[in-house]
């Protein structure tokens, strides 16, 4: 077999190992699904009436239709904590040193973690979309728009997973690894996920309009609810690709040093 097919085989072996870990260690996997669902319930049933009055335009008067795309996006961020923690704890175990003395593709361990993280987060997002539909979220997207939604969410997940893999590799302890991606889980709040940015004070609004999660949120909302997308889609994709490249090189250099 060629070097490339070994890399693929070894990466798939490591991916299987990663997914098995996720199944065996649910205390890390379950919160990733539970947190966004709880947030969804909070914003729909607790804050929904108050917030809905202020953000009705473009949401047919239903706050759930405004907030659901934001919550779906948030769901992509919680997986990053679990990726960082998992990769950090793995690197501190003796098994990774064993992998290093084997004649296997060096990238396979990292590939397994990143692919595993992406797959798990995608599953999370599917579950959160299901929960949103149950709470009354009624998107008017065509199949093509659904496909575009899935594509954009995948891009976001790949970027976040790369970044959090790098954070996990750079963290010296598992505690530090679980703290490092925390800002990522918080960023959607400082964008248009929950309320429109023009309701915010100037400084916050300025930040909200230029941070990556806002164009992603706006694009998702446009695809699912038919609101105006404008140039958000291009900016969102550019952010995702840029962060993926950044995360890739950061993770690779951290992995070589670890």
């Amino acid at each position, binding site marked *: *077999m060629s070097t490339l097919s*070994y890399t693929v*085989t*070894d990466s798939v*072996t490591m991916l*299987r*190992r990663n997914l*098995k*870990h996720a199944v*065996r*260690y649910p205390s890390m996997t379950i919160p990733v699904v539970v947190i966004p669902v709880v947030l969804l319930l909070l914003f729909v049933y607790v804050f929904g009436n108050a917030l809905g009055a202020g953000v009705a335009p473009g949401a047919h008067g239903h706050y759930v239709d405004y907030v659901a795309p934001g919550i779906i996006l948030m769901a992509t961020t919680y997986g990053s904590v679990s990726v960082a923690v998992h990769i950090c704890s793995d690197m501190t*175990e*003796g*098994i990774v*040193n*064993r*992998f*290093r*003395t*084997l*004649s*296997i593709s060096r990238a396979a361990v990292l590939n397994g973690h990143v692919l595993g993280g992406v797959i798990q987060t995608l599953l999370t997002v599917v579950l959160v979309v299901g929960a949103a539909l149950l709470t009354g979220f009624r998107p008017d997207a065509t199949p093509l728009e659904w496909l575009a939604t899935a594509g954009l969410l995948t891009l976001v997940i790949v970027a976040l997973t790369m970044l959090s893999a790098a954070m996990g590799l750079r963290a010296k302890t598992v505690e530090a690894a679980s703290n490092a991606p925390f800002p990522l889980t918080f960023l959607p709040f400082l964008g248009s996920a929950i309320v429109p940015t023009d309701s915010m004070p100037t400084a916050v609004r300025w930040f909200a309009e230029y941070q990556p999660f806002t164009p992603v949120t706006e694009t998702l909302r446009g695809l699912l609810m038919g609101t105006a997308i404008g140039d958000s889609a291009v900016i969102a994709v550019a952010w995702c690709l840029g962060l993926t490249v950044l995360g890739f090189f950061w993770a690779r250099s951290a992995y070589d040093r670890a």
Partner: protein
Amino acid sequence: MTTTRLAITATGLRKAYGEQVVLDGIDLTVAEGTVYALLGPNGAGKTTTVQILSTLAAADGGEVRVGGHDPLRDPRAVRAQIGVTGQFAAVDAMLTGEENLLLMADLHHLGRREGRRRAGELLERFGLADAAGKLPSAYSGGMRRRLDLAMTLVGEPRIIFLDEPTTGLDPRSRHAMWQIVRDLVAGGVTVFLTTQYLDEADQLADRIGVLNGGRLVAEGTAEELKRLVPGGHVRLRFADPAAYERAVRVLRGAAHDDEALTLQFPSDGSTRELKSLLDWLEAESIEAEHLTVHTPDLDDVFFALTTEAGDAPAPTGAPATTTAPLKESLR
């Protein structure tokens, strides 16, 4: 010289972490199909040596060949021939024993059928068949170490590195591990092990290197090393202080301890020498309560050649080399 093929050679191996010199120019040669034990106290540089030989760390200087290849320039060729079992069990804690072995089989690209066959065989051979479906957290220390070694053997390596393979194991598990090592060597495998246990080196190794402070302070077979230090002696203990004093007066050359009422002579421990000692005691009507014979062992070598940082070597049971031999004392 000889036609023996060498599995491992190293000359002038050096490694420093910042200011801290860990290996200060060591030379090693390990013939194929033999066991080499690197013996030394904590911090002597044993693990660093294993890391360099097994491609995990780069040496700062020196020539290294493992299985004919340079670990630094051609790590893949080295990795294809070696297996490493480190100081801390390198098993996947979230996979069962069998899954751990199958993971290794996959990483060696053995194929499904062959992987299952080899995993089953190793589980059987290492007494883990009953625990195959359990997670390592349910294993005893000895079982985890056996699983660790079984994982190393999935790829059928020709050269195996064992870094302190029995540290923390109970005597039964330790003996089981020794038997496994002997079986491996019988199959033609080369074993490079590190240990801080002298009996382990004595039991297993064809050659022993004593590492201290980053230097090889002695090297040879167990017998050769034992010859380096005059370790054998006979000790007499007296119950009666009067008998003790008489013996001290007569046996001027012997080292004596007035508080413990003991006398100590260098001796090879032969029955002839012991008989003449007992005859002499009888002839002089001196009654010794207790006689112990101490033959030189690796402990003597170890204590004589290694030092704790800042301490002078302080062998408790080692002989005082200034005492006259028993024969001269009796004359």
